[in-house]
């Protein structure tokens, strides 16, 4: 039992005290009627509260904080519309396994079910987008609810947990809201006991496949970052001379500069990463979940490969692809168990010679690098050029966040991620507007590091108001706004698959005036319209440390993201940049006389 002296607190004080006991340093939130009593003790707490401008921003900021630190992000909002506004970040955190604790106010217990003002069924609405949620009905249950929430959010496969708090149990004027507070040491959850330790049998079975493989690929996903397994995975890759692909959720888990790292697979992955998976004889899925954006047509994915699937969530095993060997466990513990047994077997000599395979892979890298055509002086910018310039002028530990769309793919493709936890984006849910609030969360965690939000013009308009938060709270993030006047990714699909019929995707370059808008929110703002000005403007932006900066990069409208695997198509049908010869195995190569748009448009029919 705890040896704390009980202290007499009301529910609201107990809630804040419990968060302090969990080591929370920052809450991203927005007050309102039902949560008012909890906001009063915040004044006396050492916990920093960041007042966002929309509840969605609170959720994404908490996610950004969690992505960057590995510690649970905390957000707090009121009932009703505030709770529904935070549903999107909860769903985002659920799909990307982000540890997060969300506290929502609720109408008083006696009013629940009466359609009271700002009442909604928060636990009902959020049930399918949280790892767990709870409605607390007694003040004295608050400490245990918080303890359980942090435990559940951070153990096993991490995820968001929501605590719904009726107003009367935190109300300082309610005598029943007072109790003797002691923070619990342990939780009692008979139905929840995640164990990250893999079974010996599964490790031995995995070792057998590893030893026999001639063309292995390590398919590294977000679970590696959640398990703090980056170092162990790299050791395994190096010992076995195994090429590695890092998914959108795992960019940086293995350094892009490393000779074994092939970069990102999937719909907009590079040719080598995609094709290495297609030709491998052993696919080691490490904390990855065979997302449809990676596999394309499942039946045609890695057709020659046996699969070892390592994941802490048993439900991921066999969900999409039935593995030959299923290793249920924490990626770090699994890698360490594999490494320990491999050491005994002689380390590198426990593997087959992968030299021919490595040479084949290098051949693809030489033939199909990522390419784009630079624009000339006086022309608008190429987004890839902007990302490369940014990459080359920022410190190596810079944290990059992104929204969702073409700019996200360009950032993932052209940035060189050499450190884990430097890339923060919305992978599973694909939430537009993620980058700015997520950058605020990351910068709040690491005030001394540079944080760039790479954003598109569509995304920017969804959450730009959080730049006011950044200004007022002195969280000086930087935003690279790739303004191509379009919802670029949707435009790309309409070009390729809807016969160039552009339906509701035009946003315009100059409505709104992004520079004036950013300045009105307290930011320093620049506009770049010529490729020759890119580097100098980035240098100016990087020199500013006391305010947020927005750099609007006016980009060409028609740039598309390549390579591309059409949705639902086989990864063998990858379309590379139009300037490159289409690979012989791709149907895109079959009629070279057609234009690219015709060719891909044809395929979609």
């Amino acid at each position, binding site marked *: 039992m705890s040896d704390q002296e009980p202290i007499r607190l009301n529910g609201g004080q107990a809630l804040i005290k419990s968060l302090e006991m969990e080591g929370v340093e920052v809450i991203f939130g927005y007050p309102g009627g039902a949560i008012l009593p909890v906001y009063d003790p915040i004044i006396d707490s050492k916990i920093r509260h960041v007042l966002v401008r929309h509840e969605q921003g609170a959720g994404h900021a908490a996610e950004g904080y969690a992505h960057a630190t590995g510690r649970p992000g905390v957000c707090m909002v009121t009932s009703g519309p505030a709770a529904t506004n935070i549903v999107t970040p909860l769903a985002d955190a659920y799909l990307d396994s982000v540890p997060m604790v969300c506290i929502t106010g609720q109408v008083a217990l006696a009013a629940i079910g009466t359609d009271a003002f700002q009442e909604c069924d928060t636990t009902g609405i959020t*049930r*399918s987008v949280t790892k*767990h949620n709870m409605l607390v009905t007694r003040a004295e249950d608050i400490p245990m609810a918080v303890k359980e929430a942090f435990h559940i959010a951070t153990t096993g496969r991490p995820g968001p947990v929501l605590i719904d708090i009726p107003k009367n149990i935190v109300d300082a004027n309610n005598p029943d809201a007072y109790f003797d507070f002691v923070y619990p040491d342990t939780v009692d*959850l008979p139905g929840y006991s995640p164990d990250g330790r893999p079974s010996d049998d599964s490790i031995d079975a995995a070792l057998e496949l590893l030893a026999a493989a001639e063309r292995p690929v390590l398919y590294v996903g977000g679970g590696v970052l959640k398990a703090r397994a980056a170092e162990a995975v790299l050791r395994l890759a190096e010992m076995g001379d195994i090429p590695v692909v890092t998914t959108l959720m795992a960019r940086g888990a293995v350094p892009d500069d490393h000779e074994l790292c092939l970069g990102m697979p999937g719909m907009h992955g590079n040719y080598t990463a995609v094709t290495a998976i297609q030709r491998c004889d052993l696919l080691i899925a490490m904390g990855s979940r065979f997302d449809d954006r990676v596999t394309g047509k499942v039946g045609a994915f890695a057709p020659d490969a046996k699969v070892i699937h390592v994941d802490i*969530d048993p*439900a991921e095993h066999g969900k999409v692809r039935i593995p030959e060997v299923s290793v*249920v466990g924490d990626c770090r513990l699994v890698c360490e168990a594999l490494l320990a047994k491999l050491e005994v077997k002689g380390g590198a000599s426990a593997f087959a010679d992968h030299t021919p395979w490595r040479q084949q892979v290098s051949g693809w890298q030489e033939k199909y690098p990522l390419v784009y055509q630079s624009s000339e002086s006086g022309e608008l910018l190429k987004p890839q050029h902007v990302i490369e310039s940014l990459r080359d002028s920022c410190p190596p530990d810079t944290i990059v966040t992104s929204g969702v769309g073409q700019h996200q793919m360009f950032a993932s493709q052209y940035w060189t991620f050499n450190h884990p936890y430097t890339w923060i984006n919305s992978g599973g849910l694909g939430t537009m507007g993620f980058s700015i609030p997520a950058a605020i969360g990351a910068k709040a965690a690491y005030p001394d590091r540079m944080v760039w939000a790479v954003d598109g013009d569509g995304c920017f308009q969804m959450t730009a108001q959080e730049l006011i938060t950044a200004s007022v709270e002195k969280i000086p993030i930087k935003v690279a706004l790739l303004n191509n006047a379009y919802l670029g990714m949707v435009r790309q699909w309409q070009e390729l698959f809807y016969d160039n019929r552009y339906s509701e995707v035009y946003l315009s370059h100059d409505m709104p005036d992004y520079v004036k808008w950013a300045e009105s929110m307290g930011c320093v703002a620049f506009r770049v319209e010529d490729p020759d000005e890119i580097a100098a403007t980035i240098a100016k932006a990087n020199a500013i440390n006391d305010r947020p900066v927005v750099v609007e990069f006016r980009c060409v409208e028609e740039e598309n993201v390549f390579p591309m695997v059409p949705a639902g198509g086989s990864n063998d049908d990858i379309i590379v940049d139009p300037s490159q010869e289409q690979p012989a195995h791709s149907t895109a190569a079959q009629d070279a006389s057609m234009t690219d748009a015709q060719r891909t448009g044809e395929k979609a029919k």
Partner: protein
Amino acid sequence: MTRPGELENHTIVVRVENKAGVLARVADLFARRGYNIFSLAVAPTNDERFSKITIVVTVESTPLDQIVKQLFKLVNVVEIAQLPADQSVERELLLATVDAPAKTRGEVLEIVDIFEGKIVAVSGEQLTVSLDGRPDKLDDFEALLSEYTISDLQRSGRIALPKIGRQAARLRAV
């Protein structure tokens, strides 16, 4: 053996913490993942901290594994057992109100008698009958009664326990 792709009923018994909203969580999960519930029965166990939910699901054999794994992800789910029909005792209760005017009353009573059912309410024109037993027995009973115009009918949904001396297949994945 069921061939792949063939639909089959499976009985799953889920022991859950006896907390508010747990049934909704379980039902929600079935809806969200696209699984069909054929019948569902829920009540507290002899240990008041827990309830048991007996669910009969209609699935191909492969997704059953997915259902079980997804159910285990619910924090309030403590234990799951699959009970194959040949290794368990299954019971269900049926109540039916049947038209039974004097002309056919004797025939209805005879059916009830053959099945060892009970008459639980009587009026001039109708009988309410009850029968408990194996689900297939109830199916037969219901089919025979339907010859006499059933005006109302309710079945309890199946409940099940493993046969004594046999261990239910534990499906806890880790």
